[in-house]
């Protein structure tokens, strides 16, 4: 093998330059399409599974779910919600009875946007679970909003009437109060505020308890129902 050749001693024609780049781009494009096509099913499946696990976590007893959106003032079930359309998820148990809603909500935290999902039972007006989907809160302090088991468990039965209030640790008195995390007051209050705001925004759009949309049978709802 030679280390260097003088093939390019004379300046190549611009045709050659364009051609080289075009071929390189073409091959690159084919490679990228190939990898995209072959990984897409796994990626979508991963995302769907993550969402389903989160919904099942914040709504205990739920084994089926469907996406619900607000169209013309009415809550309807959809297969795939439009992009940027606010969506909530209805959770149903084994007997296809409605259990509650899983509501995604987001808002500013201490550092960056916190995205959460919380379970809500409209008949009891109770928050029954909370899961942080995304946050960049300070490690060791703000990240306790998803690492502190006591705090997360505090959302297992929390009244939204009149609204949720974060109080100093150990001073929870009434059903709508939750003990804030020591040393992470700002992040704790942010989570509570996010839920309160989402609740206010959605409460007028939810149908009266008892008349929630029934579940449309879809195969995805059943396949992993056992888990």
């Amino acid at each position, binding site marked *: 093998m030679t280390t260097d050749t003088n093939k390019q001693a004379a300046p190549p024609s611009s045709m*050659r330059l364009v051609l*080289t*780049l075009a071929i*390189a781009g073409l091959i690159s494009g084919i490679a990228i399409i190939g990898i995209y096509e072959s990984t897409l099913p796994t990626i979508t499946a991963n995302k769907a599974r993550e969402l389903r696990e989160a919904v099942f976590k914040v709504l205990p007893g739920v084994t089926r779910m469907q996406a619900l959106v607000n169209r013309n003032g009415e809550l309807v079930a959809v297969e795939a919600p439009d992009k940027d359309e606010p969506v909530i998820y209805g959770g149903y148990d084994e007997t296809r009875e409605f259990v509650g809603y899983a509501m995604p909500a987001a808002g500013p935290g201490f550092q960056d946007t916190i995205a959460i999902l919380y379970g809500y039972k409209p008949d009891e007006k109770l928050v029954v679970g909370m899961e942080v989907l995304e946050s960049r809160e300070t490690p060791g302090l703000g990240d306790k909003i998803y690492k502190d088991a006591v705090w997360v468990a505090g959302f297992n039965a929390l009244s939204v009437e009149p609204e949720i209030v974060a109080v100093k640790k150990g001073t929870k008195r009434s059903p709508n109060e939750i003990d804030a995390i020591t040393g992470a007051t700002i992040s704790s209050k942010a989570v509570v505020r996010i839920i309160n705001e989402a609740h206010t925004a959605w409460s007028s759009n939810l149908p009266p308890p008892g008349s929630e949309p029934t579940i449309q049978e879809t195969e995805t709802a059943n396949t992993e129902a056992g888990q």
Partner: protein
Amino acid sequence: MKKNESYEEFIKGVWRDNPVFAQVLGMCPMLAVTNSAINAVAMGMATFFVLVGSSFLVSSFRNWIPKQVRISCFIIIIATFVTIADYTLLALVPKVHKELGAFIPLIVANCLILGRQEAFASRYPTRLAVMDAIGMAVGFLIALLSLGAVREILGDGALFGVKLFSVNFEPWVIMILPPGGFLTLGVILLFFNWFKFKKDEFLDDVAEAERRGS
């Protein structure tokens, strides 16, 4: 002879010309994703894949690529490998991909990779180019891992997610935050240079003694 040559290209990237400790390249991923050992390894592996793949292709086609458009060609090749790495990580280990976030696509902008194509792969035969790329990538991985390990041990009391101390361990929060990256890197560079300084001093002493002796 030939074997030695390859070995030489490999070992220089690991130690003498280590991309981080000696050349101070690739600082952006170095500081951003080393808050845990597992993130450091994921980033190191992704960089390894991109660097070795690109070096192989660039070196194989070095006689066909006109030098007027070589940088564009290098970038196309690198970007393709980065995209492949990005989707593969997203499909296989979504959790790690989420942690690394924007820093996977940013491998394209890692000056270490483009630098090796321009300085080495485009001038040397494929075998040496690949050995050089492996050496550099391993050196980069070692640097990432040493930073990530120090930061995870101090910042979380764990290594690869395994708790090393009792539950009462007080984590050094700063180590997981960006300033911890700067501090740790600075201290490691300090030791690397101190070691080099001491070694040179020692070699000088030896040379001096030999000169006197002869």
